[in-house]
């Protein structure tokens, strides 16, 4: 009788330990899934609200010959704040990545930043500028020099 009670006790403890372990694994997995949902949801929400335009006059792009940069104006036309930081934003002219700096690294709705795009004077004719934000949203702008 006593040995039966002990074996029942052992079974009971083992069952509780196994069930608790399964619950812990389940909880960890669910927690990771909920974190993933939260991050993806946040990222998707930001993606939806991100919009911007390159608002230069395409026939007259200001060029500072002393400093060697073109000035492009970026306007935030979305509902989310956008980041124009050389460490996370990419700028291409005619398909080549170029160095740039920005007057503002963070733009709220309707704000405008000046992009100082360092490049040798471009040949006369048509060119294309592409600005790619950290979340992959890009805008292209065809201009003439």
């Amino acid at each position, binding site marked *: 009788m006593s040995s039966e009670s002990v074996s029942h006790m052992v079974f009971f403890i083992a069952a509780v330990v196994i069930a608790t372990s399964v619950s812990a694994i389940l909880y960890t997995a669910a*927690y990771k899934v909920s974190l993933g949902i939260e991050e993806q*949801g946040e990222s998707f929400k930001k993606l*939806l*609200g991100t919009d911007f335009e390159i608002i230069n006059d395409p026939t007259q792009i200001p060029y500072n010959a002393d400093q060697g940069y073109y*000035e492009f104006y970026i306007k935030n036309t979305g509902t989310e704040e956008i980041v124009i930081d050389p460490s996370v934003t990419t700028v291409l002219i005619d398909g080549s990545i170029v160095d740039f700096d920005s007057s503002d690294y963070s733009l709220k709705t309707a704000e405008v930043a000046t992009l100082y795009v360092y490049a040798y004077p471009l040949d006369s004719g048509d060119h294309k500028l592409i600005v790619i934000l950290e979340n992959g949203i890009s805008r292209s702008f065809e201009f003439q020099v």
Partner: protein
Amino acid sequence: MGFSTVIAFSIIVVSFVMVTGLVVSVAVEKIKEINEAYQNERDKLLRDLGTDYELVNVTATGSGPSNHTLEVVITNTGSETLDAYGFTLLVDGKMYNYSANVTRLYPSTGLLITAQDIPGSIGTQHRLKIVSENGISRYASYTVG
């Protein structure tokens, strides 16, 4: 043995219900936020469709040997109210600050914006670009009088 199985099964069922609740609550919250973001996008699209304006009068008067003062009258011909300081003013490709006589441009009303000390003496021709807060632009040419 039977009691242990029941307890273990109960622990697993209760934890399963809890983690399902956790995942569902996070998912529902994110779905709500994404839905809100979609609604904002729809509102923005409607605002863009309802935004229309015209440059009804552009006057430039010399204000020194090589500068001029520019006055632009904008009429809101759309159905959306615009922020008077949400416009961006470009003259010959360069961005300039301006002052406005009102803060909000209601439908069927006018706005006078004034920009001072713009390079260009009397008789010179210039190209003007105005961009609204949501990226809609209008062009005009003028001669300094």
